[in-house]
Each structure stands twice: as C-alpha cells, then as structure tokens.
C-alpha cells in the first residue's frame, strides 16, 4: 500500500467514528448563529489556558519568566473582565431553539464568570480585595519586604522623634567642625602658596645675576691662568740661568766682608 492509500483509509475511518468524538460534537453543537455560546466557549478556553499558566508559574524556578507569565495572566484576566458585560448582554438575548431554563442557566453562568476570572491565581492574589482602597498590603510573595507605614502618611509620620533630632544636631556639629578644620587648612595652604610664588620670583630675579657672576668668574680664571703661565716662564728663566749661582756667590762675599768689618770694628 502506498502512503496515499493509507491516508485515504485513515480519513474514512475518522469520518466514520467522528460521532464518538465529544469535543467535536460540542463544537458542532455550537452553531454559527449562537453568538453567546461561541463567546462563552472562547471564554472557557481562555480561562482554562490561564489556569494552566498559573500552574506552570507555581512550578517555575526562574523568577523572570514567572513574573512574565503572571503579567500575561493578569492581562488575560483584565481582557476577560472587560468582555463579561458583552457576554451578559448576549445571554439575555433570546435565541432560536433555547428553553427558558437554559436562558436562566446562561445568565447564572455569566454572573459566575467574574468570580471565576478573579479566582485565577496571578501572583498578587492575597487577602480580600476591596475596590475602594488603592493600596492593599501585599504580603504573599515576599513577606520580609514590608512598607512599614502601611500607607498612613499623617502628621505623626513626619514628627521628629528624639533620636532623629539628636542625630541631626550631631550631624550639624560635626559638619561645622569639619568646616573649621578645612578653613584652617586653606589658610595654611594660602600662606604656602604665597611663599612659594615669592620664592619663585626671587629665583627668577637671581638667574641673570648668576649668569653675570658666571661670566665674571670665567674671565677671572682665564686671567689667573695666563698670569700663572707667565710667572712660571719667568721663574724658569731665572732658575735656568746662572744668575742664581752668581747671586749666591756674591751674597757669600758680602757676608764675608761684613763679618770682616765687624771683627775689625769690635
């Protein structure tokens, strides 16, 4: 048998046993004319998917996806709540082939719907929700995070307690002391800055003087060097000649004459 043959056979078998398919029967029962039934069916499916999602959320480990799913559930709930009045209107309409008991039953069903919608858990359901108060304390998901005030921002809330005013005083005093200290530091720094710039200027003043000293001393050293060289030459000249020996001999002769005269005159 070819695939096509198998397919056609399966199709015929399905068609034969269709009348035992509950869901399909239900769907076929809901005829195109009955808008209420259609809408109600849609509602039912949506509520069921929401409930399934809520199931998954409770088992969900990842907080982000849990939050996202909760948000989706809430959106669905809001949408359904909006459409409930429409359904109610449809419920009151008389449709062909509908008994009065069924009509009453429909009405009851519609009335029960809001309660069912609200009952879908979406992560924020907690204690009794009153429609008048804007804030209800949310204690289910994270009991340890609390808003202590409970929403009562009255006079007592802003009243300074003893500790807070003391703290404030201490804070002010410390701040004042810090300011004083900083003032003293700034004064010292000012003095330092002034001294430093004066020193800077003084040094600038002395730079050309140093340059002059430098050149003068250079000149003096070169003069000295020249003089030294000349002196050396002269002394060498003196020493190398015989004048030295002649000087000594003459000196001895003079001393000898002086001694002789001394002896004679004594």
């Amino acid at each position, binding site marked *: 048998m070819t695939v096509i043959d198998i397919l056609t056979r399966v199709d015929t078998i399905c068609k034969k046993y269709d009348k035992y398919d509950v869901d399909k029967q239900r769907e076929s029962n809901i005829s195109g004319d009955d808008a209420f039934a259609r809408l109600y069916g849609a509602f039912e499916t949506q509520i069921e998917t929401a409930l399934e999602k809520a199931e998954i959320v409770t088992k969900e480990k990842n907080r982000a996806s849990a939050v996202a799913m909760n948000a989706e559930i809430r959106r669905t709930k809001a949408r359904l709540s909006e459409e409930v009045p429409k359904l109610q209107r449809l419920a009151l309409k008389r449709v062909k082939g509908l008994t009065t008991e069924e009509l009453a039953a429909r009405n009851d069903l519609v009335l029960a719907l809001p309660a069912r919608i609200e009952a879908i858990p979406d992560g924020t359901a907690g204690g009794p929700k009153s429609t008048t108060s804007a804030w209800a304390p949310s204690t289910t998901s994270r009991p340890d995070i609390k808003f202590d005030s409970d929403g009562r921002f009255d006079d007592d809330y802003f009243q300074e307690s003893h500790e807070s005013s003391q703290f404030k005083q201490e804070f002010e005093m410390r701040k004042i002391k810090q300011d004083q200290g900083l003032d003293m530091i700034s004064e010292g720094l000012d003095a330092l800055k002034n001294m430093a710039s004066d020193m800077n200027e003084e040094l*600038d003043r002395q730079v050309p003087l140093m340059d002059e000293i430098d050149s003068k001393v250079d000149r003096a050293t070169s003069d000295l060097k020249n003089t030294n060289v000349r002196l050396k030459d002269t002394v060498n000249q003196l020493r190398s000649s015989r004048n030295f020996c002649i000087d000594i001999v003459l000196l001895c002769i003079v001393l000898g004459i002086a001694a002789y005269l001394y002896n004679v005159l004594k």
Partner: protein
Amino acid sequence: MSSDPEKMMSKADKMTKLTLTRWSADWRGATELYEQAANGFRASSKYEKAKVALEKASKGQEMQSSPWDAAKHMESAAALAQKLSIWNEVADFYRKASELYVECGRAQPASDALGKAARALEEVKPEDAIQLYTDACEILEEDGRDQMAFDLYRACASVYIKLEKFADAATFFLRLGVAADKCDATNSQCKAYLSAIIVYLYGHDLKQAEKCYNDCSQIDAFLKSDQNRTASRLLTAYNEGDIEEIKKVACSSTVNNLDHAIIKLARKLPTGDVTAVQMNAGDDLDEDDLT
C-alpha cells in the same frame, strides 16, 4: 709717613695745589694720603673730618679716572654724613656716587646708592626720598633690570601712604604692576593691583577703585588670580554697604600676604561712611527711573 691724619691731610692738600714748584698735581699720592687720613679720622671718631677726607679722596680718584673707587668713597662719605645728620649732604653725596656708578656702566650699584639715600631721608625729608626712589627705579628700568625695582616701588608707595597721598601711592603700585608684567612676575603683579585697589578704597575713592579694578581685569594674569576674587568681593561688599563682609575680606589670607603697610590699611577699612555708598547703590538700581 706720619701717622697723624691732620698732617697727612695738609700734606695731601699741598700735593694737589698747583704752585710754581708744582706744575701738575700728584693725584695718586694725594689720594692715598686722603684715604689714610680718612681711616685715621674714623678711628678717632672725628667724623666731620673723615667725611671731608673721603670727599677729597673721591675727587682724587675721579681725577685718576677710576670712577668706581670714586663712587665708593662718595658712598662712605655719604654714610658718615648720615651719621652726622647732615641731610642735604647725604642726598648730594649719594647722587654723586650714583652718577659715578652710572659712568662705570653699573646700574645696580647706582640705584642701590639712591635707594640708600632715600631710605636715609624717609623720615626727615619724604619728598626728597620719593624723588630719589623714582630716580632709582628709572635707572633700573633703563637697564632692563625691572625685578630689582620692585622693592623700590614698594618702599616709595609706603612713603606716599605715610604722607597720605593715596592717589600717588596707587599710581606707584600700578607702575609696579607694569614692571612685574615685563618680567612675568604674576604674583607680584596681582598683589600690586590688589594693593592699589585697597589704597583707593582707603582714600574713600570708590569710583577710582572700581575703575582701577576694571582696568586690571583686562589683564589675563590678574583675572585668573586669587587677588582678583578678593578684590571683587571687596568691591561688592562696598557696593552693598556690608561692613561685616568688608571686615571679613580684609582679614582674609590673600590680604595678609600683601605689604605690611597695606595690611594696616585694609584692617582699617571701611573708612568713611559706607551707608552713603549704600544709598548711592539704591539710587542706581531704581527701576522706575526711566532716564
């Protein structure tokens, strides 16, 4: 050589006088004798005679074309004159010395000499002192050594303050500012401008002070300085007539870095009636005045 200074003096005098026997004066010998005589007189505390001897020695050196030694002798003579409190001679001698130094081409000692003269005459003849200071500053400025002139400017301004001629004092501070500008000495420049403003304020001249402040604000270096802020605070305090603020600014550290004389002036601010200033400020800000 006799050790008696008197004898030396007379001998030297004889050597310098031209007579029939002597056709040219022996300046070298005479100068030596004069110097020795002066030392002798100084040792025996005969300052008058020492002074005379030094004068003559200086003349001798001049004749020998050594202006440096001549100037040195002149300075010593002037110092002795100062000791003897003969003020006009002090001024003259120092001036002569300064001229001789200029002849040598040495501006610094020249202005130093004039500075010494001015300091000596500060108490006694302040106008002369001022003149001497001014001349000293000019000598230095001609030579391009402005930085040495700062002290002289400051001393001159303080003399003016003592004479209570505040406008002149402020002018001198501004001249200091110009000299400082030439040498890029910004700290001194800003301090000079702040001092000028304070002097104007002390002289009850708020308008001048403000004008001065506006002029100085054109200068970059001043605009960026601490002194600028202090000056603006002071002027706003004056304009609002806030005496407390004026006193606070006057005691601030920026003012404490200025000259001693200026600090004294600043502490005495506000002079005169600040309330009049306040009224003036009110008149200026009259919004209903449509003129």
